[in-house]
């Protein structure tokens, strides 16, 4: 083994790790001895596509981007199904749960995040799942396949907790499998982190038509059952019997590995604009990091993190990472929504609103100083990207304000040539 090669150790083999490898290979990995340790069994896969898998719109092999052979072919050591327990920074090595130590010259933390816990009691009961990994999806698909064989009569087949993107995609997938689904959400409207109430209500209307029932402004207090889940009891006093439950209320960064090793951080492992932690030999990317107080939950900024880190490691070029806002989309067929930037109207905003109740189309654009600071689209999300670019460019839209909501086809025309008769 040539001495000149650096040992690059990546902990976690999810989407960030996979993308980082791509970026490194794109550049030059001849100077590295690369090892990836991941506690999931598969090679890096497209986690985003778990929703379509659950919905039966695609299958598992199609989303595994990097099977074991991929690593082998590129001379990358892939340690699968192994968890790292601790980092020993003085020795520059990590300790696995099996007690093995692996040395590194440079360590990358890409441990992602895990489903957030909810305060409800009896979460240990059987048939309560989260929605994060291939294994979760496997198990869900399995119960879904046999749900009608569980002879028990229940109020609903599946209870989904959480009306965010994940919860909605889980509920949609299960409903497509023929399960009766009830979704519980703590807030008064769906996607309350991305949508205003009007758009949330439109969304609810569409999903109701896809056979999903909703319980808003409510929370599960406890689950009941002996070891199998029987029912859920709610803060409101209601009780709903069910066969299975999916908890998708949010994510918690896997920061503990780094923080116990003494790296700085709070909600995640802190990084600078070049993805370096407080230890210059350790970098971090993905959902486990905290950057200027922000954590991450969508892949787009993570891709930029990977480029920044690859540039630094391979070429020693410092290209700072910028955390720009990311628009929201929901992967439910037949539901078009888009949200970017601010989405709750306040007195400081100028609000432009398009409402077509009959067609179920809703569009809202928030302006400050005649610049777009937020857009919420429902029913027809076609122009989302365009609004988003204008938001990023901070373009003054006063001249096209009255055509803005109708989309590019119109404001482009109105600004080029003042509407010929």
């Amino acid at each position, binding site marked *: 083994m040539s001495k000149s090669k650096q040992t690059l150790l990546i902990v976690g083999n999810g989407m960030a790790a996979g993308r980082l490898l791509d970026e490194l290979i794109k550049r030059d990995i001849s100077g590295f001895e690369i090892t990836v340790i991941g506690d999931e069994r598969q090679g890096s896969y497209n986690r*985003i596509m778990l929703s379509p898998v659950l919905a039966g719109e695609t299958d598992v092999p*199609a989303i595994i981007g990097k099977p074991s052979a991929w690593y082998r072919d590129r001379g990358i050591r892939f340690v699968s199904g192994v968890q790292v327990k601790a980092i020993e920074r003085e020795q520059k090595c990590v300790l696995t749960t099996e007690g093995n130590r692996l040395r590194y010259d440079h360590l990358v933390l890409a441990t992602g995040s895990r489903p957030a816990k909810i305060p409800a009691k009896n979460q240990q009961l059987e048939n309560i799942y989260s929605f994060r990994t291939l294994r979760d999806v496997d198990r869900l698909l399995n119960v879904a396949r046999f749900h009608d064989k569980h002879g028990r009569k229940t109020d609903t087949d599946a209870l989904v907790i959480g009306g965010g993107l994940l919860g909605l995609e889980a509920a949609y997938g299960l409903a497509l499998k023929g399960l009766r689904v009830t979704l519980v959400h703590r807030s008064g409207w769906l996607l309350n982190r991305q949508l205003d109430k009007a758009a949330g209500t439109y969304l609810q209307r569409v999903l109701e038509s896809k056979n999903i029932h909703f319980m808003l402004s409510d929370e599960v207090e406890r689950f009941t059952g002996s070891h199998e889940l029987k029912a859920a009891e709610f803060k409101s006093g209601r009780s709903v019997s069910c066969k299975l439950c999916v908890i998708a209320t949010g994510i918690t960064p896997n920061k503990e590995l780094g923080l116990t090793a003494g790296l700085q951080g709070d909600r995640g492992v802190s990084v600078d604009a070049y993805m370096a932690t407080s230890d210059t030999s350790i970098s971090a990317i993905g959902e486990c990091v905290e950057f200027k107080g922000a954590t991450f939950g969508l892949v787009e900024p993570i891709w930029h993190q990977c480029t920044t880190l690859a540039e630094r490691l391979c070429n020693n070029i410092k290209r700072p990472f910028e955390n720009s806002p990311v628009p929201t989309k929901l992967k439910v067929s037949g539901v078009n929504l888009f949200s970017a930037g601010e989405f709750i109207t306040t007195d400081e905003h100028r609000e432009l609103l398009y409402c077509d109740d009959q*067609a179920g*189309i809703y569009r809202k654009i928030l302006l400050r100083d005649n610049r777009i600071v937020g857009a919420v689209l429902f029913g027809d999300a076609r122009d989302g990207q365009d609004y988003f670019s204008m938001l990023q460019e901070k373009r003054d839209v006063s001249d096209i304000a009255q055509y803005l909501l109708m989309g590019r086809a*119109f404001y482009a*025309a109105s600004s080029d040539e003042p*509407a010929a008769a």
Partner: protein
Amino acid sequence: MTSSAQLITSDRPQEVGTTIQTTCCYCGVGCGVDAQVQDNQVVSVSGTQAHPANLGRLCVKGSSLHETQRSPDRLLTPMLQGEPTSWDTALDYAAQKFQAIIAEHGPDSVAFYLSGQLLTEDYYIANKLMKGFVGTANIDTNSRLCMASAVVAHKRAFGGDTVPGCYEDLEQTDVLILVGSNTAYAHPVVYQRIARAKELRPEMKIVVIDPRRTATCEIADIHLPIKPGSDAFFFNGLLQYLAQHGHTDVDYIAAHCNGFDEALAVAAEQVPTPEAAAEVCEVPSGDIEHVYRLFAAHEKVVTVFSQGVNQSSSGVDKGNALINCHLATGKIGKPGATPFSITGQPNAMGGREVGGLANQLAAHMGYDNPASIERVAQFWQAPNMARDEGLKAVDMFDAIHEGKIKAVWVMATNPAVTMPDAGKVREALQKCDLVIVSDCIGNTDTAKLADVVLPASTWSEKHGTVTNSERCISLQKGFLSPPGEALHDWQIIMRFAEKLGFGEQFNYRHQVEIFREHAALSALDNNAEVALRGFNISALADISEQDYENLSPIQWPVTPESPEGTPRLFADGQFYTADGRARLVPITARLPVKTPLPNQVIMNTGRIRDQWHTMSRTGTASKLLGHVDEPYIDVHPDDVARFGLLEGDLAMLKNRGSVYYGRVKPSASQRVGEVFVPMHWNGKYAASSCADALVNPYVDPICGQPEFKHSPVMIKPFRQAWNGFLICSQDIRPECEYWAKITLDTGYKFRLAGGESLPCWRTWAHAQFPEISDWVTVEDSDHQFFRTAGFVGGVLQVMFSAATDKKSAPEMRWLEQQLGQATDASGRFAILAGIPDAGVEDEGAMVCSCFQVGEKTIRKAISDGCDSVEALGNKIKCGTNCGSCIPELKAMLR
């Protein structure tokens, strides 16, 4: 009496694809029209080649005759107190009430108010019923509003109401003076003929005398923008000039005229020099003298005058002042030399012939002669002959207002809009015990105030004669059956007469019988020994029904001596006065009654080219509104600045508690201190843009014609909080301070503006259309703009666009065409934008949903050279987010 079914003898439903020769019903030019009829509908029209009035030409109003026929507002059944009813019930009610009022208050407590839209036969029997049988001369017409001055001027000068010349004179003359006559707009085909003559003979001089630089000035060699109302000073000056410079025709005066010396004496004293005229008229004396010289130097001079001269508190005098000049020079009764009064309405002349005015008797006989009254009474076998003049239009409505007249029948006109001080007229009608309206349209502003509304026939159904400005009698043909239960006016009057107990004297079976009676009356004692009258159609007194049906246009007098008609009168210097001599009337010229205060301007009213009266007919054809589609105010740029107005903004004129809203049109053609407003808009077409409501009810003391052309009014900007427009399939009355309606092919368009406060536009708009629930709305929290569109069954019914500044949606034809059309969700975007999709290419099937990149865009990028997923990502971003479309991208790259 016969039943209505048998009464309709003149209706001739036509075979497929026939051509009918008839006349245009829009103006006093009286053009001949060839109408193509198919399936009981007029499908196209063209000008009749052989008609002397137009020789094949038609103006834009005339050529859209077929488009204005199917009015959605057409009245189909009699209405009693707003409810449909039978003819018998309606007429019984009307007749009984009419009789009761007469019994209690005498015959002078009832009145008829007619219109120049009626055919001569209609007019004749209405006049006969009132003056001979009801026993009152309270019968006047809206011709009073445009023609009365000329009638009296003619009578004073010629001893009868006779237009001496014919249209050919306008072409054959060497100097054509148009006074207060915007021929280009008011008499388009006459204008076309003049324009053509000028083209052929550029040496022919055209002089326009008008305070405004009207469209007619386009063909003028000289325009004299005289001070409003100063016309008579101009002509007095001319008379004096002619005398001073030896241009009078001494022999002619000696042989054929009276009163020359007296007239000259008054004129010379009042306007001794062209300079004196220039001072009053406020135009350079050089220009005035130039025109004087033209008049003096040419044998062939025609002076055309109409509303600008007539609608004045001294209209009669103005007419005589100009006729004096023609008499003094003998420029009358010769080809290319005549004074020429030109009428506005298609059959105003017919009304004058039968005597359908309060101060006339019948067939050119007047109340000034007791023998005439006796003669007519005998001829009619009239039991209750009215012995005195009745009340003229303005006085008539005053009397209604005062409760002296308690029953009025309004026929085919809309006085609630067209009368001066129209607001007061409305009030009067509201108070009146019995208001009967007969009209083809059921919802005119006047009909809305009526107790009984009777459905009348209209152009293409009516059948009878009309007379145009050059005394030419034509047959306006009925060739379609009136819809529903509508009847012809003469039939309605006849049935009413029967209910009053005069069935025996009013039992005509066909129009020709009325025509013959009228012709016979025109001939009665019409000779130099008793009293020579101009109107004489004795040669037609025995006309057969067949000849009547085939009547070729013919100019009266039509006598055994001139069976082919008479194009020119007075060629022999014989007039209709007792001594056969024309009379020059001494005229002391007067300026208008009221002079404006410092915050006032003088309002002048008139027509625009393509509208006709109160728009009740032409307002329904969208083509006609393309020219000028909103009430406006022509203002001189100096006044625009002085009163703080802005071009295109709304301004308001105020007088007598009424307001006229209109768009400010700066116009250097306007004199400073004077504004011009069109007279057409009324309560059906605008919230408050009825010019006549602001007109002071000052009338000419002799003829009772109101001073429409000169009303001092207050002017100020309308400070609008918002403006907008509304297009909709159904006609509504928007609840809004300002609105003006524009008829579209697909429905209606309203321009709107609101004063002080801003309404919640959404609530406002949706409240106008409570039946619509499917709305698309665009709102701006800053209230800079608002849009909403309403659909029923996916079909666009309404689109409303409002703004606080001037940024309304563009009013494109495209948007108007969408009314009544079904659209999909993205079509709705276009409707709210007000413009069609600017053709942003259809993306094809969506491939990258993160960045919304469609198949077509990707294929194009590939053909432009992108050969890998990365290249595509760099160029068009697809596949660079979630990556789920990468397999598809790869497949497309293969």
